[in-house]
């Protein structure tokens, strides 16, 4: 049995310890927002936060994160959130129509959220550096760059109601149903 806290909910999992965290979160906990792209830590589509730091979950064995806190894209804002309930990063993404196919965007948003938590006013070079591990095959890079600047502006202006908790868990009450069950096993 391996214990893990995902989006504020603690789980006790009967899953082989070498299973990458990505597949545990997707297929055992049912949170499908984090994506499989390369299986080798090369594209960033699977990015989640481990104690607030972005990690590549497609190569992270479950046993290596036992007992720790994981945040996924579903943990940033409530399920079926209104636009106002989204984080500054998500709102900036929305306002600038960043996604195309959208498949990489959960990972991009998790990486950008972690960047802004540690560097509230990043330069273009900071952004290039922090985001270079996340591939977007549709080529939305110019908009990602603009959206990160925009989110930084929203947060520093302090006017954004979600600004204070960007990058942190929104609340534990409104999590998706699938994540609430205590004991989940996966053959």
């Amino acid at each position, binding site marked *: 049995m391996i214990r893990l806290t995902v989006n504020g909910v603690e789980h006790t999992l009967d899953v*082989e310890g070498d*299973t990458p965290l990505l597949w545990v979160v997707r297929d055992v906990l049912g949170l499908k927002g984090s994506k499989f792209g390369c299986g080798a830590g090369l594209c960033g589509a699977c990015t989640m936060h481990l104690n607030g730091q972005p990690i590549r979950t497609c190569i992270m064995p479950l046993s290596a994160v036992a007992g720790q806190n994981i945040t996924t894209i579903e943990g940033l804002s409530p399920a079926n959130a209104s636009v106002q309930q989204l984080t500054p990063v998500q709102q900036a993404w929305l306002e600038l129509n960043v996604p195309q*196919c959208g498949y990489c965007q959960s990972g991009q948003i998790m990486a950008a959220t972690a960047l802004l938590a540690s560097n509230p006013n990043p330069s273009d070079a900071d952004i290039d550096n922090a985001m270079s591990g996340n591939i977007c095959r549709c080529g939305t890079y110019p908009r990602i*760059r603009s959206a990160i600047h925009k989110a930084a502006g929203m947060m520093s202006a302090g006017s954004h109601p979600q600004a204070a908790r960007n990058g942190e868990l929104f609340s534990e009450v409104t999590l998706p149903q699938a994540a609430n069950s205590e004991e989940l096993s996966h053959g």
Partner: protein
Amino acid sequence: MDKSLNSGLSRRSFLKASALSSGGLLLSVALPGCAAIGMKNQGMVSAGEWQSNAWLRIDTDNRITFILDRVEMGQGTYTGLVTLLAEELEVDPALVQVEFAGVGSAYDNPLYKLQITGGSTSVASSFKRIRLAGASAREMLKQAAAQVWALDNTSSLHCDNGQVIHSSGKTLSYGELASIAATFSVPEDTALKSPDEYRYIGKYNKRLDAQQKVTGQAVYGIDVELPGMLYAVISRAPAFGGTVKTLDSSAAKAASGVVDVFQLQAAGRSGVAVVARSYWQARKAQQLLQIKWQTPEVAPSSDAIFAQYARDLDNEDGEQVRDDGDFSAAAEQAASTLSAEYQLPYLAHATLEPQNCVVKADADGMEVWAPTQSASMARVAAGKHSRYSLDDIVIHTTWIGGGFGRRILQDYVAECAVIADRLQQPVKLIWNREEDTAHDWYRPASLHRLQATIGADGKASGWQHRIAHPKVFEWFVGDAAPAQYPFMPKFMFPMLASAGKLGEGILAPKDSSGYEGANDVPYALDNIDVRFIHSEPGVPVGYWRSVGFSHNGFVTESFIDELAHQQKQDPLNFRLELLARHPRAQSLLRRVAQLADWGRPLPGCHQGVAIHKSFNTWVAQIADVQVEGKTFSVKRVVCAVDCGQAVNPDMIRAQMEGGINFALTAALYGNITLKDGAVQQSNFHDYALLRMPEAPQIVVDIADNQYDPTGVGEPGVPPLAPAVANALFAATGQRLRRLPLQLA
């Protein structure tokens, strides 16, 4: 009001109104006469209720539902087509709910007679059809209001925000009127709004699918989950056409969670499937397989393929696809000539969502969930590879994590159909990145020889372009031909496929994938000779974003640049002079030159220009490129596009940005190589994609006009590589005639 509709759109035969069983209005596309066969999948779900071919549903509770007959893979079709409907229906596009269509001949792309999303055709082919559906519904709702209010006609009525409004100010909502409207037949002379009446077309700048994509809620194919679902992975023969020589699966079968291990043959490929209770268990067991592969007799390596192309160019005249003037005479009379050979590699699509499929098969039939660009071809693939007839197969289309042409081919559906048919349980097949890279349907490699003639007066007099390239259509026809004739019994499919090969003019447009963008070279030279030399190396090929234009755009726009320099002319002015017959192209070139400040590059940079027309859209680009030693970086790309009436300007900008970065990946890195019939690249470390630090600043300008809309998903790609290569020539004097671009 614009009454000039395409003659092909007879309204009487096109739309059909009916009542929903729950009350409300349903507008469907009337089926052509012969399509009464195969009704179960084409709409006659229950007693007289047309469903799967419906386009528009208005429920009594004011819900407006649009059934999207194109797939959304990032290109913005979802937003584009809803905008067209909402414009005529007079509702906010954000209020229209969207469902993805199943299989139905009503959803066929009128250009291909196939239910397919490709060729940058969605908005172009739907521009009038969908507006007409919206306008017809609007007029029927007005008629319904006139009946309720006992008016003689609808002249005192107008529609706004989902309501019919009388000049007195009283209103009725669409939901209140839908059931009455459903009793009318579709009016025959519905006028469409004129451009000066547009509220959304050309103005609507929201992306309707953005919110579910920034919250992780959009369900892609790989996210589909069914109760009791198993997970499958497949080891495939590394060399194309390879087979299993020996297999020892005992260790894999004994591994934790494994349900089944077996050999399979699907979509022309041999492999071994491992099915387990979880994905990771299947992957771990796959490592335990002991397989020896039989390499096929023909197992080419890259060098041999280009040698074959060169041989065929040496020996074959090929098919002449453009013949202006008399090139041979021009060559005989030439004072000098300019010759060059260009070479382009195979390219993988590398959609970020790897190929995957979910299939449920049982006594009731087969259901398929697939991120596919063609629901009808997915159904053929599933039918060909299972016991089920097409009428017993239902296709569910999902969000798609990148298409770029990869998902026009249905091999992953075929594979999953084989597995689910055998197990009679729900199965999800997931390819990993290595498999996705090694078993794609690649953008064909090609070899080009060009010759320009210079007359005694020193001016360019002739242009010859000879192309060695396979026929993409022959790799695609197996599923495409039967999808055009779904009522044919399955045993006829191979015959249809071979008929498609023999008589492609009957079943599909002529295969122009080798020479499109070359035979229509736009420059006004008196003698032009373009030839297609069919050369088939036996490597699976497919449609890759911008298809033939992707290589011919690079070749023609590089060689015209060579010619400009040979003529000691400014490359931009040289093009302008030779484009006298294409005023839209000329004005686009002038516009891009103005925006990029042609002749005054960014500090430390050099500029290159290119213009290319693909999918009826002209795109001109100027790249500012900085060279440092043997490396270079693209600092800025200015892009001007003329795609006719802009429906969603921001979606067009996004497609140009995306097309430029997609093309820059190919220009910098893209190179699939083969050794002994197998692809040598595997993942993003050796098949690199563009990343944030290499992404240039991009400026997009959209020509303002009201011609019918043309494609935007692909046309941003072709001009980029030649613009960069032309800038590198300006910077270094090196003419790079191969992709990816590498300075000496």
